């Protein structure tokens, strides 16, 4: 068995400073893969790491490997705008994301790793009567689902976020907003690292720089994988590879209802605190928050085509910046410091797939689109349950692949349908 990692605390910091930080332990090991595991998780992003963590913690399955082709947390986990909220419209989604939000609330303590989850609130701004109607619908649904949500009128919006432009004379004036105070942001890398440390401590092998090249299937059962570090056997294989889900599905002879698209984001140069919440606007496509470092963190929209290049059209960025300047004219002289792209796999109903497949022992967790980060702990929790029991958890039961045949979609972007 593995030694329990030494606890992080202000005392351990002081103690270690006396030995000039010579005695810190690695946060996780770098083992070579074994010949066989009880379960293998492909993909060392947030969702993969939490899956392994909860398989070990909740289901006692510790003989697990996480296979990561690059470095853990290097995909969308390390590229997103870190917005965490659970104010979804449909009951099924609300249950999924609020379960995750509850896990976020105790995460730093549970992991003994400060993920800096900061509940500074998320405001979803309405600019048209259609927005108002849809956001109010969501507000009431959230309330009755016991998810904290408030409606702010324009005056209250201004009070809560004084730098937002609430002039009635702008092209799309602010007509109101929903506010979820429990929502907020977190330090994205820390989530991956914290769960990696936690999973490692329970015996999970995290194998980086190892790429899966094939999935071995015999008589409809998964038997293992081929990797760049050799063949590994397992009877339970969980695929959590976000943008590359279809690439993995192809190895199993499957297709998924996914399109992988570029999604871009950027940060400004760091400045002293100027915006103390997260502001999201679907209508004009702007998502802004400020990191603890002081950078404005801004998310853009997806490009409308498949691409695995982690690069989108710059016109999308220009549109996003214009929207940000429209809502926050004072940011006009701020400067874009760093821009990047990721690959998001999008389902037709903008809801994820956390599901068994027709192949025994093969499970997929994908289709989180542009919003998977917030679900990280919840996604792993229910996916671990699905893998351990070969049955979905009640929370992810609505998110099977079968819903695309039956028609029981959870259409989250329907709620943002265009106006009449």
């Amino acid at each position: 068995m593995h030694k329990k990692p030494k606890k992080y605390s202000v005392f351990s910091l002081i103690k270690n400073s006396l030995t000039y930080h010579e005695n810190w332990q690695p946060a996780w090991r770098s083992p070579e893969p074994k010949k066989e595991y009880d379960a293998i998780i492909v993909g060392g992003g947030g969702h993969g790491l939490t899956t392994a963590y909860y398989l070990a913690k909740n289901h006692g399955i510790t003989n697990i490997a996480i296979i990561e082709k690059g470095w853990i947390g290097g995909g969308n986990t390390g590229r997103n705008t870190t917005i965490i909220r659970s104010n979804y419209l449909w009951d099924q989604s609300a249950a999924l994301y609020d379960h995750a939000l509850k896990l976020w609330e105790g995460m730093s303590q549970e992991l003994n790793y400060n993920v800096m989850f900061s509940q500074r609130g998320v405001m979803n701004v309405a600019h048209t009567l259609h927005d108002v109607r849809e956001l109010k619908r969501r507000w009431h649904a959230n309330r009755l689902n016991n998810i904290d949500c408030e409606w702010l009128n324009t005056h209250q919006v201004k009070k809560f976020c004084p730098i937002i432009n609430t002039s009635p004379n702008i092209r799309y004036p602010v007509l109101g907003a929903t506010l979820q105070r429990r929502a907020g942001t977190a330090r994205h890398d820390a989530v991956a690292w914290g769960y990696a440390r936690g999973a490692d401590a329970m015996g999970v092998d995290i194998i980086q720089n190892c790429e899966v090249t094939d999935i071995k299937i015999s008589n409809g059962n998964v038997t293992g994988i081929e990797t760049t570090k050799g063949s590994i056997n397992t009877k339970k294989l969980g695929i959590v590879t976000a943008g590359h889900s279809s690439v993995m599905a192809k190895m199993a002879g499957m297709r998924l209802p996914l399109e992988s698209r570029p999604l871009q984001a950027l940060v400004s140069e760091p400045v002293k605190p100027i915006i103390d919440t997260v502001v999201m606007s679907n209508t004009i496509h702007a998502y802004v928050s400020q990191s603890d470092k002081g950078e404005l963190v801004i998310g853009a929209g997806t490009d409308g085509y498949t691409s695995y290049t982690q690069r989108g059209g710059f016109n999308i960025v220009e549109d996003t910046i214009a929207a940000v300047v429209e809502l926050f004219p004072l940011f006009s002289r701020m400067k874009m410091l760093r821009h990047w792209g990721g690959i998001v796999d999008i389902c037709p109903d903008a809801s994820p797939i956390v599901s068994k497949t027709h192949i025994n022992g093969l499970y997929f967790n994908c289709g989180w689109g542009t919003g998977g980060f917030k679900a990280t702990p919840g996604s792993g929790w229910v996916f671990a349950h699905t893998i351990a029991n070969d049955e979905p958890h009640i929370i992810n039961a609505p998110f099977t692949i079968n819903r695309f045949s039956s028609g029981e979609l959870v259409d989250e972007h329907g709620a943002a349908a265009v106006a009449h």
Partner: protein
Amino acid sequence: MTKKISFTFDGKKYFGNENNTLAEALIDNGVFLIGRSFKYHRPRGIISAGSEEPNAIVQLESGNVTEPNVRATEVFLYEGLSARSQNNWPSVNFDLGSINDLLSPFFPAGFYYKTFMWPPKFWEKYEYFIRRAAGLGKSPNEDDPDKYEHFHYHCDVLVIGSGISGLYAAELAAKANLKVLLVEQYNSLGGEINSYASQNLQNNKSGKKENYETKLFNEINLKLEKFENVKIIKHTSVFAYMHNNYLLACQKINSKDIRQIIWKIRAQKVVLATGSIERPLIFHNNDRPGIMLANSARKYANRNLNLGKNIIVFTNNDYAYQAAIDFKLLNTATKVLVVDIRNSSKGDLVEQARGLGINILFNHVISNTSGRKKINSVSIHKINENTNSIIDRYGKVSCDLLCVSGGWSPTVHLFTQSRGKLIYRESDATFIPHKSFQNEISIGACNGTFELDKILEETYLKMSKLLSSFNKKIQKSDYNKIEKTFYDKMKHLWIIPSNINFNKTKMFVDYQNDVTAKDIKLALKEGYKSIEHVKRYTTTGMATDQGKTSNINALGIISELSKIPIHDLGTTTFRLPYTPVSFGALAGRHVKEFFDVERTTPMHNWHLDNGAKFEDVGQWKRAWYYPQNGENMFEAVNREVKATRDGIGILDASTLGKIDIKGQDANEFLNRVYTNSWSKLKIGKCRYGIMLGDDGMVIDDGVTSRLAENHYIMTTTTGNAASVMSKLEDWLQTEWPELKVYLTSVTEQFGTISINGPFAKNLMIKLFPNVDFSNENFSHMSFKNADIDNVKCRVMRISFTGEMCYEINVPSSYAKSLWEKCIELGNEYNITPYGTEAMHVLRAEKGFIIVGQETDGSVTPIDLDMSWIVSKKKYDFVGKRALSRKDTARNDRKQLVGILTKDPNYVLEEGAQLVNKISKLPMEMIGHVTSSYYSPNLGRSIALALVKEGLKKKDQTVYAPMPDKTIEVKISNPVFIDPENERVEG
């Protein structure tokens, strides 16, 4: 003579010269302490002379033109310039935050991941202080008064960088008669030539080489000016290299009208001549003010600045000797000492330095420095032959400037942005371009070619090849009579040995973010082994300079500590932008009134003149209601609704999408895209249709009229007009190319006036006296052409209010005058313009749906209780198959019903959720209110809702739990007025 310009720094007034950067002026005034570092608040000065500057960043100006984090090395002096240091309190000289420096043993890399977790839920309290401590400058807090512009440019050859290689490349391309754009990030051409000895050296014998380069530069420059096919833009930083040679550059104009311009350049060929950046050396206390990159100091010396009298140059290569030589020749300093890591060097420059009497210490390193706010001395140690450990103390040597050089890093940022691949060159520890992905070449220092003769040769060879693709041949310019300089090998030493325990050292790798070599060691020790993990854990390379000086050193340190060769580590991604770009510039003109297109109807001005309030519907501005005599919205809407049912209401419906459909298969086409049957629709008749996606969900609705045998006009909802048109085109062009059908969007060709109410016919007769409006000859759901003053109109008798209604489609240019005529002639029937709000009330009274309001992408026509419109006979239509899917065919889905509140005066909120019974949270919801209004005709509120199994629940009581109280409601028929449809007949 240069003119003196006054400026202030931290409130103190100074004078500088024209064409000086702020950094130059500060140095010249003896100001070396410019700012404080991010984490430890250590005093910092100017390190470089360019866009790689990590330390000397200031808050420029104040008020609405303030700009945070401006590099003092990039901003040019102007009269009255005002700058302030950042990240210190109360002042840069005495900064309380510098206590962090003393506490730094407790703040190793990533310390914040290990603490601030107790007590639980306290993070936000800690965070409050952390956030205030972090950040650098201050965001403006007023609107930007300046304007920005975007500019598109196409050229044959784009040359980036105007050093010798770039200039020569531009000249060669210009001679080949191609359209050339030369972009320079600074305000003068020449690149490194600007660091070369200037006029002062011309008469000096030893300055021959510098003279040659300056002469060469002047020569090419002069030639370039004569070419009309060359455009040169300065002060312009190319910050992104995207697909297909699409590059973006930001030009700083700072004129009264335009502050900055984004150039969007599409080039046939790109020539990267972006130069290189000098590297610092990593030694203990290498960050004090007065420690500078050697070549930057040389540049400053050549601009006759007061750098220091006692200068030490610390180097691992020959190039830095040029700085020492210049200091001597220019009489910058009285004492110049070179400390060289290497055992020896036979390089020409070393010989020259020796000849000038410059003292050189080989096999020595600087192991420490002192001087809190400005360097005053260094400790020098002798190292062993293998250069990996200290063997002897040389002593403490005083100085007032320390120049360092760790070699040069080619500026490959744009090359890698173009997706080219790099290769690692061991000899001078550089990443150089290896495999191109796009149509581009790298020449000169950015290609790892540092020596003048080789640069000229390489430029010629690569340009010849590039130009041959344009079928152009070029002559070599006669610049090659160059005295070759021999440079001896450099020696790489990523961590300078010190007599101090490594774990106690402060060897700064990333100056701004305060990342030290021992932080990198800690990261590796803790398992953060990937270069990306090290970067993210320590934050190295993530400051406002994005690691221009630090990335390669961080990589070298990782390699040295982990014993993994650099070429197995890879690099982090060189992300755009190369230098930060203002949001204002990126947004360009797309702000304020130009943020988004505003679409207005032909009658828009009439609505404006008559006090209408507007609603945004997609890009359209639609009249929402017309308050009169101080009415509030409620009163105005009630008046409009009542007037429509009592007299005549007139609506501007011009925004509805209109698609002209022609062709012999048009009827078959409609049968495929709508759920109902169109086969029997007679000419002159209209029919309502619902359009589905192939997933069975409603995407649009509207009335289509048959104008002639093979000619129809389809109307769509306002918001879906474009997407419906696209979808129909898609079906026709890709799925059913055999159908002879032609579509034209005519939305903006017609204005649409909808005349509703019991007296609608009276008005129509007055408007069109020649048309027979009798019910027999012009029945509901039929169509007629009609002329008014020789203007051809199309009149459809269709109704979205349940009243007798005529919709007149009139060519847009006549729409406003026809509207005015309607108002004038309708006066006797109390004609009342009504807006979208009254329209909503009127249609809701009749239970008519609005796509996008009653539907949300999850609703079928069956759910809307409109199975009558879904043909059972047609073998197929778009969406048909999906309706019989297991879940879609359920009969307990959410269905459209009417809702009547128990309290008739209470108007439910749209979006309110409905429940069967009140319980503790969470409550099980059975549906939601889609539309809700006060109906003045019924004298009570009405609503529509989608409710689970709603059709079975008629007359049942359900509840809408609102935040303040629970509303009791009854489920009803969704048709509240005139269920027999009598009014529509008049």
